[in-house]
């Protein structure tokens, strides 16, 4: 049985001081993690906000809950996650989701595909991200992404990679096995399992 832990989804602040005070308060109250969502709405951008929260605290874990996979290329997500983990001394948790708000895609001029396609794309992204964070040279040919001989450096502090949180509510997202070839290949190695959180972003 896993010990309880608690996290706060924090979204906004009027200044650096206010944001960092909030992070210190979240830490002071015993929360495990401060996480930042990723919406095209009135809130902070998650990666810089997570790094700033880590800079103001000592042991609080910081993360994304969740990055909308459709907003960033997985190679970029892996690179930013590795740097965020390195520069937070290994306190980063990478939350990923398939995206669910059509209005956001519409505003940014991005196609909003049906759920199955977004999920398939997320699965491919997770495979690429895990491979890159794990230190592999990734070559991947999918329906949505094509990566050729790419590696990232510096890698994350947490090995093989920072915990990955997949958030959602739909049965396909929660039940999908495998999360890509690298995950399914991982049954016998020490990679942490994908954490499937039932809380919706």
């Amino acid at each position, binding site marked *: 049985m896993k010990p309880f832990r608690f996290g706060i989804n924090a979204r906004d602040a009027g200044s*650096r001081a206010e944001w960092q005070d909030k992070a210190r308060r979240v830490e002071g109250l015993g929360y495990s993690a401060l996480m930042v969502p990723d919406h095209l709405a009135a809130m902070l951008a998650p990666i810089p906000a997570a790094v700033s929260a880590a*800079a103001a605290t000592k042991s609080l874990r910081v993360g994304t809950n969740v990055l909308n996979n459709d*907003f960033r*290329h997985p*190679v*970029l997500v892996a690179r930013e996650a590795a740097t965020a983990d390195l520069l937070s*001394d290994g306190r980063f948790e990478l939350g990923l989701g398939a995206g669910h708000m059509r209005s956001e895609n519409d*505003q940014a001029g991005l196609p909003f595909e049906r759920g199955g396609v977004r999920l398939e794309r997320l699965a491919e992204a997770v495979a690429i991200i895990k491979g890159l964070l794990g230190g592999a040279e990734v070559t991947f040919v999918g329906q949505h992404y094509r990566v050729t001989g790419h590696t990232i450096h510096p890698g994350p502090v947490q090995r093989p990679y920072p915990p990955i949180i997949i958030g959602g509510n739909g049965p396909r997202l929660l039940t999908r096995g495998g999360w890509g070839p690298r995950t399914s290949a991982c049954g016998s190695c020490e990679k942490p399992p994908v954490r499937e959180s039932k809380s919706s972003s």
Partner: protein
Amino acid sequence: MKPFRFGINARDARSRAEWQDKARKIEALGYSTLMVPDHLWPVLAPIPALVSAAAATTTLRVGTNVINNDLRHPVVLAREAATVDLLTDGRLELGLGAGYVRSEYDQAGLRFDRGGVRVERLAESLTIVKELLRGAEVNFAGQHYRVAGHKIHPLPIQRPHPPIMIGGNGPRLLTLAAKEADTVNFTGITFARGGTEHDMSAWKVPAIDERMRLVREAAGERFDSLELSAQIQRVIATDNRRQTAEELVKTWPQLTAEEILESPYVLIGTLDEMVEALHARRERWGLSYFVTFDPLLEALAPIVARLAGK
């Protein structure tokens, strides 16, 4: 004439402590900015690296040199820039470029369009990013992006937006920079054939004069408010400039020793000679901001000590 300032392109660290020590050192030596490039190479990712560098320092400005426009959607970029500016108490300088290394595109499975298309896309992106940072509700229908009724919040601290630097060497990019940027960074080198061939011809004085004419013309009335910067490739303290330049011809066979010494992209000589050279470059071309790479941060430091803010 703008006061001198200096920046360091910092790329790597093995730990948070090492990265933040580097940032503190750059600040203590009198540099104005720490900048992070954006490559799919063994370098840190710029956005988180900037926030961390700012957290370890008090007045150092932090920037990107430069974001590859093709790696991020402009709406996402504007949001991230606003957050970085807010969470660094208004210390962001946003450097943008069109992307030039084909191998990066190939690795990430992105289409590498010809230069004209990449610059056109950067121009569209720049319009969207600036308007969003300003606080406008953006409606934009371009060839490459379509934004419908989007605005961002929180906004950056620096109004109307953090300074925007556009770096490059080609005439199309420099024209765009002259029209839209706050700082025009002359990188000096054209990376032809997807970044695999270095064309050094723009280091020659007539080529620099020509680029300055182009920028002045494109900038029109805003020219006087533009900051012009040059990216320095070598800082070599020596009592014998001539001999050092002759040795560098082996590295850059497209140039003569004389052309190397006259170029604003190197600093060679005694401290007094280097200080004098920077004064001469500011007089002649208006270059007042000089950027170099982190292995040279100690070498440039005595010059920074003499000239920063003057």
